[in-house]
């Protein structure tokens, strides 16, 4: 448990640095985790050079889902959008620094699924985006 609720996770959950919305934005997408109803929206600004200049998330959910969203936003600012497209499950787990069972993995990966669905311009944040 001390692992799962590492201080960094609780900290990012309680005091997220990248919570909010961007207006205007270049990319915006939102979806739910059908298992628990957690909801995440991701807004991005992308420069002409194709690099993410701003990223914000909004929504509600458990500590794992919200902390991973905050960490993910932090990690993609300054990254080329082409690199963001390549992010997968392991990248999020590395950010969190924990191992997760199949149920909580869904919580952790929600923000990445939403991000990638937005970047690819898809209608739905499906599991296949992060595997």
């Amino acid at each position: 448990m001390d692992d799962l609720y590492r201080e960094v996770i609780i900290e990012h959950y309680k005091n997220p640095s990248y919570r909010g919305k961007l207006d205007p934005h270049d990319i915006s997408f939102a979806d739910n985790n059908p298992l628990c109803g957690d909801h995440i929206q991701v807004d991005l600004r992308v420069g002409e050079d194709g690099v993410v200049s701003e990223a914000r998330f909004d929504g509600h959910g458990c500590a794992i889902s919200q902390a991973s969203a905050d960490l993910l936003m932090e990690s993609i600012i300054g990254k080329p959008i082409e690199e963001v497209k390549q992010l997968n499950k392991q990248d999020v787990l590395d950010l969190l620094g924990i191992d997760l069972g199949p149920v909580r993995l869904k919580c952790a990966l929600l923000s990445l699924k939403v991000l990638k669905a937005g970047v690819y311009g898809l209608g739905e944040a499906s599991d296949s985006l992060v595997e």
Partner: protein
Amino acid sequence: MTLNIEQIRKDFPILERETKLGTRVVYLDSTATSQKPLAVIEAMNAFYRCSNANIHRGVHTLAEEATAMYEGARERIAKFINAASPRQVIYTRNTTESINLVAYSWARANLKAGDLVILTEMEHHSNLVPWHMLQAERGIELEFIPVTEDGLLDLDMYRTLLTRGPKLVSFTHMSNVLGTINPAAEIIRLAHEAGAVTLVDAAQSVPHLPVDVQALDADFLAFSAHKMCGPTGIGALYGKAELLEAMPPFLGGGDMIREVKLRSFRPNSLPHKFEAGTPAIAEAVGFGVAVGYLSQLGMDAVAAHEREITEYALERLEEIPGVKVFGPSADRKGGVAAFTLAGVHPHDVAQILDQDGIAIRAGHHCAQPLHEKFNISATSRASFYIYSTTDEVDLLVNGIYKVKEMFG
């Protein structure tokens, strides 16, 4: 008569299961599925070891024995809910399938575009989605009896809806989130006065309260074995004989027929008309033993124990700062306590409690619209059954304090 909980706990081998900490598991998730007593586990085991064969039409000893056990279980289940005849008890996979059977067979034969079906705002998805599907297909109309702030059905609004001449009123006997025990007999009486047929989702009531289908005057009543000490994979639909007789079959196949020609068939009589294909035979045997087990305890005693433990749990939970329990007071609800803890997501509550071997459920409990009504996305839910103790409630409360400390 009061239950001897210590004795009952000895009947459930899983309650001996050790957690990572070497303590006994604290199982507070019986509303999702109950644990199974040894009698049920052994009866199913014995069936496969000694009596297994396919039922009906077999003349050999094993087939006759299996058929007798399968039909004997039906008789016990019929008696348990006081059905007039076992042929009014249809085996299904679970409550969900029972409701779908009514939606596919009775409703498709009896409802047309514009016909009104009344549901409630506290329904589980299993009593919402089949009607959504029928609405898309047939253009029926749906209305919902509202839920009040304290988690009760607004019966005045119900009376108003009834003036619109509904064809069907389908409602949960006991909410799986709020725990509210709805006044089923009154809801049914009013529906009948308005000329509507009634379907009771009794998934949570039959396991926990004495339910008498004749006293309720229910037209249809659906429940699952696995929430009442029985196995998964089997449930039942009770129906009034004249309704079931008039309904077209549900699934087609073996066992549901009287006669099959290359281009036609004649359906079998009740209850077999609705039981196509090889059914869950060992599960039926387990189901029969489960109702026997509960009958022996006495459903009045079961309900009394749950009321007592729920009262205690609500009192202890409500004393925790930041905890909000949903639903009515203990005298109007079954053994369910759905709650939120300020500032902590229910998933996190459940996960941290799990580390101490305490099993509760977190999420929307397949009742998303009800959560929306209360403006929350999820709750944590502790639920109680015949083997639950006040000591377990204390462990839950201590666990919640620990969660608060972590998120402090």
